[in-house]
C-alpha cells in the first residue's frame, strides 16, 4: 500500500519534473515581489538548484551545473510536500494568493460528493439490475437489462452529458425553465469553493449533507437536484459494468450445486436468491468496486468540466494547461490514496462475507 503510493509519487514526479524545465518546479513558490536572487535562493532551498549555481538565469536555462540530480530533487520535493508545503496556486482567475492546498481542500468535497452520489447510484441500480438479468436469463428482462447495461457501458459520457443538458434545457421545460439545472453545483464562483457561504455551516464539506445538518431544507433540495444529472452521467458507465459483473457471477452461482440443494429444501425462491445466491455472487462485485472507485474519480474530470462542477477535476485541466504541477501531483496522490484505502476496505468486507478467507 505504501509501496503503491511511493512508486506512484516517483512516476508522477518524473513526469512533471524530469520532463519539464526546472522553472516549473519553482513556479508555485514564487511570489510577485521576488527578485532573481530571491528566486535563486528559493530554488536552492527547494533542492532544485545546486549550491554552486551562480545566477538565476543559468538555473532557468537549465545549465547542468546548476541543476541537482533528479533523485536529489525527488527527496527534497518529498520532504517539502510531506511537511504540507504545496506552494501557491497558479490557477487562473483566482484573486489573491491562495495556497494550492487550500484550493484543493476547498474544491475536493464537491468531487467527493459527486463520486459518492455516483457510487450510490451504481450500487443501487447495478446490483438489482444484474440480479434481475441473471434470474430471467434469456428472457425479456435479461435482454432489456443487457441493452441498458451494455448501452451504459458503451455510451460516451461526455455525449450523454450534453444530451441530458439538451433534453432538459430545450425539450423538457417548465415555464421556459429547464426542468433540471444544466450546470454547476450551488457554489459561489470559486477558487476555494464554499457552498453558499453563510447559508449553511460546514460539517463534512459535502453540500448535500451539510445543508441537511444545518436544517436548510431548500438548499438541500436545490443541491440534490443539481447533483442529479452529473452523478447520473458519471455513474452510467459503472452501472453498466457492475450489472454485467453481477449478472455473470449470479448466473455462475445459480448453476452451483448448493443452489440446487437450497431449492431442494423447499424454501422460497426469494430466499434462495437473496440468502443463498446473492451472498456468493456479490463477492466478485466487491472485488471490482476498488476499480470502480478509481474509474469514478478519474471520470469526474470530464463530467466536472462539462457540468461546470466546481470540484478538483474541473480545476485539473486548467492546472495542466498552466503547468500547476503541485496541484496535479496533489490530485493524483490523493486520488491514489483513496483508491488504495478503498481496496483495503474491500479486502476487509470480502473477508467478512466469505468465511473461507478468514481462517
Amino acid at each position, binding site marked *: 500500500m505504501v509501496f503503491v503510493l511511493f512508486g506512484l509519487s516517483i512516476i508522477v514526479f518524473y513526469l512533471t519534473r524530469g520532463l519539464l524545465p526546472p522553472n516549473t518546479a519553482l513556479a508555485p513558490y514564487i511570489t510577485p515581489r521576488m527578485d532573481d536572487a530571491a528566486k535563486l535562493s528559493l530554488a536552492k532551498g527547494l533542492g532544485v538548484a545546486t549550491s554552486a549555481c551562480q545566477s538565476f538565469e543559468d538555473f532557468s536555462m537549465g545549465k547542468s551545473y546548476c541543476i541537482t540530480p533528479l533523485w536529489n530533487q525527488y527527496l527534497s520535493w518529498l520532504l517539502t510536500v510531506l511537511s504540507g508545503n504545496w506552494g501557491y496556486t497558479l490557477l487562473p482567475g483566482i484573486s489573491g494568493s491562495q495556497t494550492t492546498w487550500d484550493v484543493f481542500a476547498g474544491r475536493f468535497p464537491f468531487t467527493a460528493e459527486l463520486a459518492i452520489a455516483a457510487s450510490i447510484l451504481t450500487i443501487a441500480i447495478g446490483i438489482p439490475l444484474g440480479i434481475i438479468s441473471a434470474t430471467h436469463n434469456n428472457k425479456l428482462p435479461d435482454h432489456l437489462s443487457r441493452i441498458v447495461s451494455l448501452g451504459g457501458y458503451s455510451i460516451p459520457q461526455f455525449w450523454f452529458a450534453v444530451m441530458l443538458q439538451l433534453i432538459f434545457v430545450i425539450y423538457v421545460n417548465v415555464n421556459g425553465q429547464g426542468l433540471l439545472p444544466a450546470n454547476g453545483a450551488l457554489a459561489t464562483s470559486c477558487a476555494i469553493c464554499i457552498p453558499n457561504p453563510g447559508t449553511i455551516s460546514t460539517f463534512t464539506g459535502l453540500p448535500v449533507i451539510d445543508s441537511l445538518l444545518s436544517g436548510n431544507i431548500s438548499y438541500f433540495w436545490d443541491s440534490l437536484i443539481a447533483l442529479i444529472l452529473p452523478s447520473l452521467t458519471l455513474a452510467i458507465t459503472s452501472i453498466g459494468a457492475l450489472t454485467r459483473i453481477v449478472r455473470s457471477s449470479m448466473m455462475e452461482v445459480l448453476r452451483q*450445486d448448493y443452489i440446487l440443494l437450497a431449492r*431442494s429444501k*423447499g424454501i422460497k425462491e426469494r430466499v434462495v436468491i437473496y*440468502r443463498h445466491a446473492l451472498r456468493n455472487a456479490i463477492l466478485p462485485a466487491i472485488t471490482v468496486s476498488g476499480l470502480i472507485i478509481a474509474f469514478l474519480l478519474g471520470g469526474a474530470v470530464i463530467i466536472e468540466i462539462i457540468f461546470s462542477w466546481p470540484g478538483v477535476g474541473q480545476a485539473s485541466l486548467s492546472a495542466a494547461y498552466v503547468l500547476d504541477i503541485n496541484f496535479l501531483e496533489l490530485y493524483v496522490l490523493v486520488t491514489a490514496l483513496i483508491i488504495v484505502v478503498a481496496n483495503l476496505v474491500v479486502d476487509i468486507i470480502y473477508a467478512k462475507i466469505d*468465511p*473461507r478467507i478468514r481462517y
Partner: protein
Amino acid sequence: MSLTQGSEDRNRVVLRVSNLKLNFHTYGGDVKVLDGIELYVRKGEILGLVGESGCGKSVTALAIAGLLPQNAEILSGEILLEGKNLLAAKKEEIRKARLSEIAMVFQDPMTYLNPVIPIGKQISEIVESDRQLFLKPVIEELLNESSTSRAGYVERKKLERILKDGNVSKREFGKLAKLYAISMLRKVRLPDPERVYSMYPFELSGGMRQRAMIAMALARKPKILLADEITTALDVTVQAQILKLLRELKDQIDASIVLITHDLAVVAEVCDRVAVMYAGNIVEVADVERIFSNPLHPYTKGLLESIIRPDVVKDELKSIRGSVPNLINPPPGCRFHPRCPFAFGRCSIEKPNLIEAEPNHYVSCFLYG
C-alpha cells in the same frame, strides 16, 4: 401398465412414477433421457436405483423432486405422491412438497453446501421458513429430546405451553429452530453438534458434511428420502459409517428411502428392493436377493458379472461389450439390443414392456414374454 396391475399391495405404495418420458434440449438435438420410467416405492423400504452414469437415475430423482433444469421437457407421465400427481401440481405446491414430503440428499457435499452460510443455519432456515407447518414437529422433537436428557425441566413446560397455544413469536421460534437443528445434527451422530452448528462447510470433513446434509433432509420429516450417490465421494470407512447411519435412521424415521447408486455392493448392503436402469429405462425390478441370485435381464446379468469383487480373483474380468448409446439418437426398440448377446429380430423393432416374470420380479425383455 403392468407395474400397477401387479400383485403389489397398493396401500403400501407411497410414491409411484408411471410412464415418465422426458427430453433435454441441447444444441446437438434432444437427448431422450427418460423413456417411460415405471417405478413405485413402498412405505418404509429402501429402494435401490442402480445404473451406470448417464442412465437417467439422477434425472429421475430430480424429476420427482421437481428440480429439473430449465432445458428439460417432460413429454408424458405421472408422478404420484400418495395419490397426488406432482407433475400436474403448481410450482408452489411442489415447493411445499419438497419442504415437507420429498427430501433429497446429494453426492459430494462440498459443492452442495453453501460455503458462506454456517451449517446450522442451513438446517434451521428450513423450519423457520414455515412456522405453521413445523411448529408441532419441532416442539415434539425438542420435548422428546428433553425427556431423554437431564437438562431443561422449565424448558419443557414452556414448550408444552407453546404447543398448546399453537402460537409463537418469530424470534422465539428462531431459538427453537436452532435447538432443533442441533438435535438433528446430534441425530446424524455428529460430534459436538453445538459447535458444528456455527461451523462453515469448509471446516468439516467429507463424512461430516454428508451427515450434515442428511440432517437437512431429516429436519423436514419427509415421506420420501432421495439419496443420490451419497457415498460415492467418500472413503470406504466413511462410506460404511454413512450406510450404517442410513440403516439406523430408516428404523427411526417414518420414511421410504430411494438410494441412487452405481455401486451394486452398496445396494446389496442396505437395500430391500432394487430397480436397475439402463439408458433411460427401468429394465428390471425385484427384491435385492432375487436380483443377485437370479437376474433376468441380460443387462443386469452383464452388470453383475462385471463387478470386481474383493473376495474373488479372476483371470479375465468380464465386461459388457460396446458402450452406452448416445441418447440423442437412441437405438430403436430395446435400447440395450446392440450390446445384448441374446438379441433377436423383435428387439430392434419393438420396445419391451416391464412385465411381471415372477411374483414381484419385473423385467422388460422379450426373452420373458
